[in-house]
């Protein structure tokens, strides 16, 4: 890397800090990625799958049938999907499967609930301190 001109660095630092400050005062809201999750399950497990999705802040968009199985089309925050395959499997005796898709477009990001935002900001602050 070529040495940065002292004037350049001054503007980078000033720009960075001004931006940070402005952003903080502009009512910032955290957005989280929401995945499309299609769950394919035998009919008898539709109930347990749905109530589990509720605990993951999931939204069931619609539901249809495929080859005798129920397909639940849901939107679920990525943050709630860790180990989901294992959970779904134990919920349905291994008989359900699912597919996840996500497109990198801004409509797929949704504001997190206030309590999650507070928690995330606290976590982030702690992590920043650790790294500094």
């Amino acid at each position: 890397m070529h040495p940065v001109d002292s004037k350049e660095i001054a503007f980078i630092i000033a720009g960075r800090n001004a931006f940070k400050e402005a952003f903080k005062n502009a009512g910032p809201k955290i957005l989280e990625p929401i995945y499309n999750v299609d769950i394919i399950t035998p009919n008898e497990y539709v109930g347990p799958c749905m109530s589990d999705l509720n605990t993951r802040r999931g939204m069931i968009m619609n539901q249809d049938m495929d080859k005798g199985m129920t397909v639940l089309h849901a939107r679920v925050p990525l943050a709630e999907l860790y180990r989901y395959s294992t959970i779904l499997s134990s919920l349905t005796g291994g008989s359900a499967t699912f597919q996840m898709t996500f497109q990198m477009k801004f409509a797929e990001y949704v504001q997190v609930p206030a309590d999650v935002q507070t928690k995330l900001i606290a976590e982030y602050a702690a992590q920043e301190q650790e790294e500094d």
Partner: protein
Amino acid sequence: MKSYTTDKIRNVVLIGASHSGKTMLSEAMLFEGKVIDRRGSVEEKNTVSDNTEFEQTNQKSINATPLYGEFNGCKINFIDAPGSDDFSGGALSAFKVVESAVMVMNGTTGVEVGTTIFSRYADQYGKPMVIAVNQMDHDKANWEGVRHAIAEEFGKKAIICQFPVNPGPGLEGFVDVITMKFYNAKNEELDIPAAYADEAEELRAELMEKAAEGSDELMEKFFETMELTTDEIREGLRAGLVKCETIPVFCVAAKANIGVRRLMEFIVNVCPSPLGTVQKTVDGGEVRCNPAAPTSIFIYKTSVEQHLGEVSYFKVMSGTLNEGADLVNPETGNGERLSAIYAVAGSKKEKVASISAGDIGCVMKLKAGKTDVTLAAPGQEAIEHMVFPDAKYRCAVKAVDKNDEAKVGDALNKIAAQDPTITVEYSKELRQTILSGMGEQHINYVKWRVNNEFKQNIELYAPKVPYRETITKIATAQYRHKKQSGGAGQFGEVHLLVCPYIEGQEAPKNFKIDGKDTVFNFKSQDITDLEWGGKLEFYNCVVGGSIDLGFMPQVQDGGRSAHRFLRPRHPRVCVRR
């Protein structure tokens, strides 16, 4: 070992739920196929198929093991696939190289979750299926129950070709309604006992009707005479099988080796040979399984094996592969001489001089390509790549000891190169290495391998979530950076305003700042599409000549780098002095 012509080859994969008995059936097929002269068992940890330490301690298959046996002058290559969905990668790769699948069912339980999962896969990959209801000698064997479950699951596609006589520990054998013979517990072919003649006739009539559906000619013949010969039944079954419209149902007791010989005979007589089958190429062309065409082989599996190192398994998709052949990878142009080629039965490898179109073999320590590649005579097109379902399990991974990072990375990359259902990716944004696979067990197996094969310790944990951030109102800020400590001094002052971006709306120019109406005068603008779909609009509204405009990019960079973790969604930034 001799070389088999294409029409004398059958390639099948054994699929089905865990514990249905695929590995025991493989052992019996190896025995009947004269590859081994003593059968091992899963309990004694000495089967040919479950030959790795992990498989033996856990008494379950993890790898899809290629095996073969000779029967009536034909070579049956059969791949013993694992029954858990987490390890379905093995069965799905096998689908690339087989013409049909044997669905092994547990005769005590019937249709299980694994049965449904793998029959769905067979359907998706367009592979014909033969059902083998196993464990007919088990004290809980329940033929009637299983038969009904099959009818419910597969409907009219399923057609009974056999039924057991006295299922349970006293199993006497199976009545076969294709050959209209009785096969006793010693696998001898006898006449059907009188007590079972009526049932056999009834099933024979159903079988004929089903076989007649195979082609118009057979249907005509059947309507005219109400009769089909045994060969015509075979022909009709084969036609229905190839179209995935017929699922013949057989019975076996793999552990006691009853009925296995007859199942192999059916595979040889009725299951399709690879001759004339077609593979699509990546360029939209076709490779036909023709022994006279130029040589083309497809590597569907790579594994690291004790004493051998890296072993690549392939199917000759066309032509004949001779030892010492010079082939190229059409996608990279890399060439390679295959100096030694082998027939495979698990860890037993037998050197051969040539392998014909349609046959499966292996080669050691290839350099020109790993899994999912074609090696062919110059000028051939690469065969279409294998397809796998998307990963279902993601986690972050790191070396327990930071100093081992490089070694761990190397181990993970090697595993991913062998197993196409594993991916390892470093996410710059999350600053984590993300490991994904088919399920938690699959990922835990990777961890086990890193630990046992590569002697490294890794830790698995929840991956970070790539959050973004947006703003909801207008705000201004200013910052002055001043530093004088020898050399050139640093000075920069930035005033800026951010406001939420609304799709399709022009950037506003009039703002009230500190109670004063202020009009912005845009000197220049810069619109950046952010990689996650957002947009950053940056307007330069510097007044007069207060700063050198050449510094704008620096201001902008500063703004962008301010949000490493939480990134702005669609902000509009106006800079002014």
